[in-house]
């Protein structure tokens, strides 16, 4: 019992080091801490709760399999999200055909900031609004403010340049500010997320 309490007090990086040395309990504690965070990160990309849960499990299995190669010089969360991102990309490619068939429905579900503003009036949660901005913007916001990652860490996780990450963050902020502040001037008012997605965002 005391051991369990002590495990809960440890930092992620301490637990990751212990897991690397063979501690199953430490790894389970890491899985317990991160499963929901990883779920909300993966959910918009994968499209369904079931797929996101499966991906969370796959990610933790992959991580434990390779835990011997964990480098404590990097944060555990960076390692975790990088692995999850790669697995999600693989899954996305495998399911590309299925996704294409349901693209019409998915596009309808993608939020338009203007529509989001109307819908957002009923939602008090800022993260709900962030999620409505679209998958890519939500992910950078989550990594930046949900996981307190630096620009460099986000760039490593997403496999993009620092500048690309800053541009994504800027667009996400602009869109989110558009949802929050009704008095944005017309020039900088964010365009609908669906239209911007086609330009590679």
């Amino acid at each position, binding site marked *: 019992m005391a051991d369990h309490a002590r495990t809960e007090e440890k930092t992620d990086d301490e637990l990751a080091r212990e897991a690397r040395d*063979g501690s*199953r309990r430490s790894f*389970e504690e890491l*899985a*317990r801490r991160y*499963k*929901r*965070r990883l*779920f*909300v990160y993966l959910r918009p990309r994968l499209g369904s709760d079931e797929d996101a*849960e499966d991906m*969370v*499990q796959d990610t*933790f*299995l992959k991580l*434990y*399999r390779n*835990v*011997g190669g964990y480098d404590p010089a990097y944060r555990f969360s960076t390692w975790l999200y990088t692995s999850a991102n790669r697995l999600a990309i693989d899954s996305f490619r495998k399911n590309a055909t299925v996704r294409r068939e349901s693209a019409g429905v998915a596009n309808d579900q993608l939020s338009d900031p203007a529509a989001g503003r109307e819908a957002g009036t009923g939602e008090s*949660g*800022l*993260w*709900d609004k*962030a999620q409505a901005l679209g998958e890519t913007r939500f992910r950078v*916001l989550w990594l930046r*403010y*949900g996981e*307190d990652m630096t*620009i460099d860490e986000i760039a490593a996780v997403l496999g993009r340049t620092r500048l690309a990450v*800053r541009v994504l*963050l*800027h667009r996400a*902020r*602009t869109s*989110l*500010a558009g949802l*929050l*502040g009704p*008095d*944005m*001037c017309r*020039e*900088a008012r964010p365009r609908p997320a669906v239209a911007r997605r086609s330009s590679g965002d």
Partner: protein
Amino acid sequence: MLCTISRWMISRSEDTGKKMPRLIERHIVRCGACGEFARVSASLSSRLREERAAWLAKVPDFPVDLGRGLETTMQGARAIEAGRPLSRRLLFGLRPLPIAVTALVVVAAALVLFQVVPKGSAPTAQDRAAARAAIKSFTSAPGGLQGAVGKAESSLEREGRILGQSLSSAAEYLQARLNIKIERKEAPKPL
């Protein structure tokens, strides 16, 4: 245009901590929308961080059933640590691709190093019958096997005899021609 630049500079300031140019600061003071954007951007960080825990709590919990997969992986890790050989199933479960590649390399190397030569055809029934007849002829020869060996040696003696006859006839010819006498030497004494 200036609004767009101003908002980019506000974001840059949020991300990198760099100070905004004076021109942009002045614009933010004058432009209400950009001022609003600056205010929202500045508060976004703390608001999102504050709301994170409550938002995550709304996400329905689900079991991370690492279960058998994790157990298998952990057994593998422990076995490796203890230096025990892994079961084949576990090994394939852990590293299917590297193992398949290794197997291919081993087979390819074996094909390069060793040439496959087809075995000669098996003796037919006729060959067997001929071999049996040959053995029978040896065993049924007079004197048995020794007789067959002696018979084989007789051809050498015959050759020696023929050679001796040739030499003696040549000696006779020379005696008659040259009017000399040729005598055969005695056999050399053994040492």
